[in-house]
């Protein structure tokens, strides 16, 4: 008998699951990147965006649970596949085998992956729970604009984000192309664009995310006036929520749909 469950019995089947979970994470990373760009629209828009997401429990928890399941499955299967692959050549080449065509990104997937895992944990602790502040600032669950600006004013926090997004770019480049291959999305007519598509998406997401710490450090985002507007807007939201606690959640939930 064969069924979907037997997929994980073969290395290819496991790779398909890695690819599907990877693509789920990839989809999230694209959405997250687009959301991040709202920072450039202005402090109010960015704070509203965060507020809206946080006040939509089905969306928030649906996403969180999906991502948790995806990332745990992704890491579990890639690690077991990587172990198997490492043991498939017990006697190593004595004169090193020369790579001909593979990419740096492909060779470092098992390094960029775990680095991303570490970054994800730091990132969640930093901006979500419990929320960390750097450079003498205080963390504010509503004024996320101020959190971003004060954190990236600390050079090493900005450096961590730039470095982590470089890792993300590498992982996405090989990951996106590899995932298409793993799920068999191949057709002679489109094969030539698959790699360029992967490069384009990886550069867009990683480059776009990197722009945020760089823009803060370059003084393009987060001047005194913007920070004042952000603080005011956060206070407004707080006051508003205090008045209409009950229906506020419903309204923002409907708006989102």
């Amino acid at each position, binding site marked *: *008998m*064969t*069924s*979907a469950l*037997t*997929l994980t*019995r*073969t*290395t*290819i*089947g*496991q*790779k*398909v699951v890695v690819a599907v979970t990877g693509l789920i994470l990839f989809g999230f990373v694209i959405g997250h990147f687009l959301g991040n760009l709202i920072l450039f629209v202005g402090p109010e828009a960015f704070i509203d965006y965060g507020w809206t997401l946080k006040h939509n429990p089905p969306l928030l928890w649906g996403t969180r649970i999906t991502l948790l399941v995806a990332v745990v499955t992704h890491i579990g299967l890639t690690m077991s*596949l990587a172990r*198997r*692959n*490492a*043991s*498939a*050549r*017990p*006697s*190593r*080449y*004595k*004169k*090193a*085998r*020369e*790579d*001909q*065509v*593979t990419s740096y990104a*492909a*060779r470092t*997937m098992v390094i960029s992956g775990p680095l991303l895992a570490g970054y994800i944990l730091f990132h969640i602790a930093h901006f979500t729970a419990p929320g960390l502040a750097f450079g003498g600032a205080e963390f504010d669950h509503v004024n996320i604009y101020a959190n971003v600006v004060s954190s990236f004013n600390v050079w090493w926090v900005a450096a961590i984000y730039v470095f982590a997004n470089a890792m993300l770019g590498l992982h996405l480049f*090989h990951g996106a*192309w*590899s995932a*298409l*291959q*793993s*799920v*068999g*999305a*191949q057709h*002679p007519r489109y*094969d030539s664009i698959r790699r360029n598509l992967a490069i384009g998406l990886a550069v867009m997401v990683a480059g776009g995310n990197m722009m945020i710490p760089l823009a803060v450090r370059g003084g393009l985002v987060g001047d005194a006036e913007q920070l004042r507007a952000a603080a005011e807007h956060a206070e407004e939201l707080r006051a508003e929520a205090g008045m209409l606690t009950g229906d506020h959640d419903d309204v923002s939930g409907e708006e989102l749909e």
Partner: protein
Amino acid sequence: MSDDTIDLKLFVWRQEGPDAPGDFQDYSKYAKGVSTHASFLEMLDLVNERMSADGERPIVFDHDCREGICGCCGAVINGIPHGPQKQTTTCQLHMRQFENGAEIYVEPFRAGAFPIVKDLMVDRSSFDDIIQAGGFISVRTGSAPDANEIPIPKESADASMDAATCIGCGACVAACPNASASLFTAAKLAHLNMLPQGQAERYKRTRLMIQAHDDAGFGGCTNHRECEAACPKGISTDFIARANRDLLVATVTGKDGRLV
């Protein structure tokens, strides 16, 4: 044609048996005055003759057709399976590809699923196991069928033929960072799965051959495409995507042994 000869700094892997320790030996003294018109295997023949004359055990290496079609020969030459020339088997590699005084390291294809028999010769019967698992079509073999009895679109026939150029040498495994035989398996699958005659057993074949591949201890594919670069026939990794798709269909729909 010139009668150039070259002197080589030749280092060859010597190993008595599968579990014996092995090492590179310096055979430079036997590798002088090699004709640039000699093939790589003819160079090894010459070295072996000189070694025999000296009472040394000749280097063991696999070979048969010596014209690049049987898939018997193969060694990793300076870190590249079948050596530096693209789409060329070891037997078709010629010494004019090397400079006078070149350093050449020769070692066997290495993979857990390819135990070393002796020196450069490896046991590739794990490939036979993969073929036996499904690399055939079950038909009554009687008299030859009429030509063109079964219409086959030209594109399918061509693609299937591209896959069928696989000579099963194992360079893909040797080149793969994971010692995976995905390209071999995928080529053998596409060869049959893309033709009308191969449809009846398509999904069952895919599942069984991929299972046999894993059971033999080969690694999995991580899409480095080193196999394609090393393949003496230049077989494309697109066939691996095809095999993946067929496996997905086979497992998710349980289509084993059925056409639609």
